[in-house]
């Protein structure tokens, strides 16, 4: 009676196959390893899109399945980016400083090297001392751990406070907005130790790696595809069994779940923290492809876009979140990237950079009104009926 998880969820296998095929096709067409039909910068756009899809399925888990409209998950995404960015920037700067100091007559002392790195990194904010939070920036292993740990810990503390007080619905959404706004404002300060509004830059360069960007971009593209595949598998597994039943129950009738004897607050906290960790990983893969991260990235609007992507793709179905995010973010970068031709109307010229947001807003309204299940809802029409063993 107990068929395996994959056999019960054929859509997971289909998704993974499509993702693998897509990765292969992009690789074959790329400049780094293929015929060069896809430019390196477009490989980066696609890689970043995969990272956005990863945070989108996390958003679908917390919103679509558990019913918690978090409008703050980009805070976790950004923190993941900052954590990996610190190591990338530190290590690359260290190599440059060591290199330039070694041209002198005497070999540089460790103090001179540290001072040199400090000057290079923090000169823009008028400082040269290393803030305490950079204490482990020289360790890739630790910073990679922080990619998961720091967003996870923030989510755990924030979620514990919010869920314990039974804050729900729109009030929770507002709280999460406040959280990401607070983080953004904090990071804007030069004293935050993360270079204020300059953010961390040069993240596209891997320290000690001489391979050209056309190759490095593919490494990140593959890593993003792998992360999305694993994340999809994990979340699909989480929502497939009894745990999935419970969280969907929380979404539809919290009190009932409570009187069944489930500690609703604990389940919410588990999902909130898990999705924050996934968001952190997505961010850590995204920003090295973007090359730069600054506090504007975790502004409240970013998390709202995330909700819009998932809504357009269709909540409560993981492939919907992926489709919505890929579609909207790619179309968005086409319109805002200056590639979309302006439309001269004689008396007025429609510039898409300005008008794209109206188009996005309009499509959001239309989806909400006429296709509440989003683009993914169309796929559901093809889905089979549930079977007896689907528990």
């Amino acid at each position, binding site marked *: *009676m*107990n068929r395996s998880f994959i056999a019960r969820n054929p859509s997971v296998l289909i998704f993974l196959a499509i993702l693998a095929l897509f990765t292969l096709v992009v690789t074959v067409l790329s400049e780094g390893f293929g015929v060069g039909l896809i430019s390196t910068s477009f490989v980066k756009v696609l890689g970043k899109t995969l990272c956005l899809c990863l945070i989108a399925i996390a958003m679908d888990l917390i919103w679509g399945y558990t019913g918690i409209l978090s409008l703050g998950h980009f805070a976790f995404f950004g923190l993941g980016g900052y954590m990996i960015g610190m190591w990338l920037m530190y290590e690359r700067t260290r190599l440059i400083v060591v290199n330039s100091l070694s041209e002198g007559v005497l070999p540089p002392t460790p103090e001179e090297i540290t001072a040199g790195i400090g000057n290079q990194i923090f000169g823009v904010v008028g400082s040269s001392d290393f803030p305490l939070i950079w204490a482990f920036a020289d360790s890739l292993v630790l910073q990679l751990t922080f990619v998961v740990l720091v967003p996870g810990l923030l989510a755990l503390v924030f979620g514990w406070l919010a869920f314990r007080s039974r804050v729900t619905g729109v009030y929770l959404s507002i709280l999460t907005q406040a959280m990401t706004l607070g983080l953004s404002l904090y990071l804007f300060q030069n004293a935050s130790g993360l270079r204020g509004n300059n953010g961390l830059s040069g993240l596209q360069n891997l320290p000690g790696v001489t391979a050209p960007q056309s190759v490095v971009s593919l490494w990140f593209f593959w890593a993003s595809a792998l992360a999305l595949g694993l994340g999809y598998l994990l979340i699909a597994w*989480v929502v497939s*069994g*009894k*745990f999935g*039943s*419970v969280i*969907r*129950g929380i979404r*539809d*009738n919290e*009190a*009932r779940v*409570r*009187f*069944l*004897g*489930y*500690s*609703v607050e*604990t*389940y919410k906290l*588990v999902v909130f923290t898990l999705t924050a960790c996934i968001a952190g990983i997505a961010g850590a893969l995204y920003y090295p492809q973007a090359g730069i991260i600054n506090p504007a990235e975790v502004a409240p609007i970013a998390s709202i876009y995330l909700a819009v992507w998932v809504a357009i793709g269709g909540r409560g179905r993981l492939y919907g979140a992926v489709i919505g995010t890929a579609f909207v973010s790619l179309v968005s970068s086409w319109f805002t990237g200056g590639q979309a031709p302006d439309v001269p109307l004689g008396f007025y010229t429609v510039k898409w950079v300005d008008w794209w947001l109206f188009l996005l807003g309009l499509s959001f309204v239309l989806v909400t009104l006429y296709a509440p299940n989003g683009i993914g809802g169309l796929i559901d029409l093809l889905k089979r009926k*549930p*079977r*007896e063993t*689907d*528990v």
Partner: protein
Amino acid sequence: MNTLLEVSGVTVSFDGFRAINNLSFQIADAELRAVIGPNGAGKTTFMDIVTGKTRPDTGHILWGDKSLSLIGMSEAKIAQAGIGRKFQKPTVFEEQTVQENLMMALRKDRASLAVLFFKPSTSDFERVEDLAEEIGLGEALLRVSGELSHGQKQWLEIGMLLAQEPQLLLVDEPAAGMTPAEREKTTAILVEAAKTRAVVVVEHDMEFVRRLNCKVTVLHEGAVLAEGSLDHVTKNQDVIDVYLGR
């Protein structure tokens, strides 16, 4: 018979209004009991207090052989201790199948990690099938519960309660909105359930209470007005004045 639940001297006020006023109440461990009373008598508040939704201002609520105090325990903990509750409106998880609803309610470890790695065994599936049979939904296991009729949803919810294997079942107006045939079936389910556990039915409908054929407690203004057989309480002058006379 042992006392299963003992409520003594409980008072609850909402903004100065005493919803429950020095209420004392006892249930034995395999007993069917009907609680009746006019609107605002405190029937639902009584359930809220026992299940942990509302915290009383004063009084004691003692549970089971060990006289565990339920005051201050979370709803989930109280449910795990063995008190099941059925709401007035049928509340089942409408997007999930009858099978999923029952499987979720089945008495198992409720901790999140245990649930995450839970794999239903053959005996779990059989237990769910038996329960579905018991509530007349044996043929509907794979139906999405949102598609069920009003009466079937009520039964499914009762089935979920039975799946929890509680020692005490609190049932809020189970017969509301049911056809006569459905009422009969509901009566049978509740009477059967009361053979192995305590069942408290809050009900408005006198005809339904008569069918249950059990001890009746009349609530009025948050306190017990009368207690005994239905015939006994309906002859009580106080009861006639506040409830039946209207």
